[in-house]
Structure formats: structure tokens, C-alpha cells
């Protein structure tokens, strides 16, 4: 473990979470200990505006976001500004976090891409209409756990790709380069790039297939 690794639990995080889960009007069933710590933190931020949980999310995501933002072509001097904006958006838009549909990192990913696009071009990315869940809908723990399991599987599949495939996938999802730009930079014909991305994705899908019932 290096100094950069996030602590396994936030300082005083567990007591705060437990307290939050007992809070009147809280949803104890919404946050069983089997959820990943990121999901537990995010639910505590969303439902209890828990600052300790938010600080834990900061420790986990801020260094990753900074690496991600710099690789996406934003100058290092501006990178922390973007990290700050993304972290504040996580706090402000927490009510839109729905663990049935997206694991925390996937939700943070699209916030980060939005913020980077805002910085890089005049008009931001157009967004779809939001889905609103009926108020009072009970959380479905099995679906939340399935979304989390898929995210874990994806992450480990990504780390098992060969270096070349992994690099192309990362570049594509970092928005670092368009397919055309990847082609210009690597001297590979566009068809090869596309089929390599497809190969990488197929490999990921194959890994994920074991998850489907």
C-alpha cells in the first residue's frame, strides 16, 4: 500500500455510516454492509449528506481523477480545478445517483467527461433527459449488487487485457483521441484500430458473460 492508496475505511467512517443508517427517516435496508465501500459512501452522501463519507470518496477518486484528467489532455495546471468541479458535482448532484443503474465509478466517469468537455469546447455535451424513479420505490439490493459485480468484473477484465488492447480501450474511453486521431498517432489504419477496440470489447463481453444468469 502506498501513501496514495485510499484508506480502507474513512477516518471515523464506519461509525458515521452506522449512525446515518439508524437515522430517523433513513433507509437502513438501502445500505447493507455487502455493498462496496464506494457505494456505501455515495448512498450516505446522497441520503444523509454525510461529509465523512464524502471525504472518503474524495480520497478514493481525486487522485484517480487527476491522473485521468491529465491523460485526457487537460494541462496539469488546470487539472485540479477540474477535479474540484467534479467532486463538487458529486456532492451537488448526489440525488441523481442510482446504484440500480450505475456503479459509483461509472457515474463519476460521466460527470468527469462532461466537465472536461465543458472545459475543452464552447458548448458542453448535450445530455439525455433524466430518469426519475418513483418516490418511495424500495431499493432492490440484488440488482445493486449485480451492477457492482459487473463493475468489478469489468475492471479485472481490463487489467487482464494485453498492454496494446488495454491502451487502445483506455484512450478511447478517456476521450483522449478520436478513432481518427488514434490512427494518425499510431500509424495504424482506421480499420485495425476499430477492430482492435472491438476485440478488446468482445474480450470484455466474454468475461462478463459468466455473470449472466
Amino acid at each position, binding site marked *: 500500500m502506498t501513501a*496514495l*492508496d485510499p484508506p480502507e475505511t474513512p477516518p471515523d467512517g464506519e461509525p458515521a455510516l452506522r449512525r446515518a443508517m439508524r437515522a430517523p427517516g433513513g433507509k437502513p435496508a438501502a445500505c447493507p454492509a455487502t455493498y462496496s465501500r464506494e457505494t456505501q459512501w455515495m448512498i450516505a452522501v446522497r441520503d444523509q449528506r454525510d*461529509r465523512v463519507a*464524502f471525504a472518503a470518496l*474524495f480520497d478514493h477518486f*481525486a*487522485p*484517480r*481523477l487527476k*491522473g*485521468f484528467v*491529465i*491523460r485526457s489532455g487537460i494541462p496539469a495546471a488546470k*487539472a*485540479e480545478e477540474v*477535479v*474540484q468541479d467534479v*467532486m*463538487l458535482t458529486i*456532492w*451537488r*448532484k448526489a440525488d441523481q445517483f442510482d446504484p440500480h*443503474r*450505475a*456503479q*459509483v*465509478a*461509472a*457515474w*463519476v*466517469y*460521466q460527470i*468527469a*467527461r462532461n466537465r*472536461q*468537455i465543458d472545459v475543452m469546447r464552447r458548448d458542453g*455535451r*448535450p*445530455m*439525455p*433527459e*433524466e*430518469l426519475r424513479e418513483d418516490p418511495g420505490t424500495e431499493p432492490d439490493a440484488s440488482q445493486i449488487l449485480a451492477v457492482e459485480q*459487473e*463493475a468489478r468484473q*469489468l*475492471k479485472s*477484465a*481490463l*487489467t487482464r487485457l494485453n498492454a496494446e488492447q488495454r491502451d487502445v*480501450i*483506455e484512450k*478511447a*474511453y*478517456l*476521450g483522449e483521441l478520436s478513432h481518427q486521431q488514434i490512427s494518425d498517432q499510431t500509424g495504424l489504419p482506421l480499420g485495425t484500430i*476499430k477492430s482492435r*477496440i472491438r476485440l478488446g*470489447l468482445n474480450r*470484455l463481453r466474454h468475461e462478463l458473460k459468466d455473470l449472466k444468469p
Partner: protein
Amino acid sequence: MSVTHHHIPDSMLAAYAAGTLPQAFAVVVATHVSMCSMCRAALGAHEAVGGAVLEIQDQVAVSDGLKSNVLDLLDAPFTAPPAPTRNGIYPGPVADVMKTRAPRWKTLGMGVRQDILFGQKDGSLRLLYIPPGQAVPDHGHNGIELTLVLQGSFSDETGQFGVGDVEIADETLEHTPVADAGEPCICLAATDAPLRFRALAPRLLQPLFRI
């Protein structure tokens, strides 16, 4: 509620997730996703890959003061920008571009009208209005054209397109979309290059019509 049959290709959803699509195409994708739960789920899958990419990034230490700065800002007053909201037949992402105004139709002849929402170096976005039974003049394409139906339906050599459906055309497709009987067909169309309308506007007139 109509059933969508023609969807956004997966590679385009991936590019939208990564934010590398030209703006005009991105509006069409966001609009379709607002209308199609299947593509919303597929987009979610790409965002999950993006999330995994974020998770495995090399970590770069942030400066000492950043965390306390952010924590201090949590209570700062903040007004959320309004979320994209549908306006009549125009889903949120289109309504956002139109800024709640009504369409400003300009006639192209034979009852066909268009409203150019924006034209940029890397593509243009417009609304098309086609009376029932009327054909959009035969045209080829210089680049890729995405057409999404907002009202009514049209048919061409490749099939029928109803509300929510997207047709993707490129250089190789020569087609004649005809609006079906019933309501006038209103579409959202994005191109990454100027269109060549053959029957209607000779090449020289294209700058005039901005098509």
C-alpha cells in the same frame, strides 16, 4: 408509445460516452437515448467501461489544500442548471438547443421546410418538416447523416421509420425518404458535411440554402 426499431449503433454510443462525437451527432444520440430504454442501457454499459478505466488510472497526488478547499465549498450557494425537459414533440436535448422557441421554418419548396438549429465546422443540426406523401428530394451524402423522427413517420428503400427511430446514411446510400400518410413528418437531422440535394437545389445554390 411507439416501439423503436432503428437504434444508435454501438460504436456511436461509445463515442458519445467518451465525448468525442461532433456536437450535432451528440444531440441526436442524447435525444434518442431520452426516447429509447434499450440504448440508454447500452450507453450505461459504455459508462461502466469508462468507470473501470477511471478506476485503473495511475493516481496522481492532489495538492495539500485541495481537499479542504472542496470541503469548504460544500455549503456554497449553488443553483443547479435546469435539467433538459421535453417541450411538446421536442425531447429535452432538442428543446435545449431550440431554447424553448418555436421552430423557425424556412421553405425548401414542395411543402418541405427546414430550421437550421446550428451549423458548425464539424457538422450541422436541423429540423425537417415533410408533408404527408411528400418526398425529401433525392440526395446523396458527402459524409454521415443521422435522421431521427420526432413526429409522424417516413419510409424509404431501407424501411419505415417512426417516432424515435434513427436512420443512418453515408456516401453509399442513395435514398428517397417519403413521409407516410397522417401527420406531417418532423425529423431531427445531423450531418457532418453539406448535403447534396439533386432534384431541388443545384450545387451552386447550396450556399444559399445552407444545406
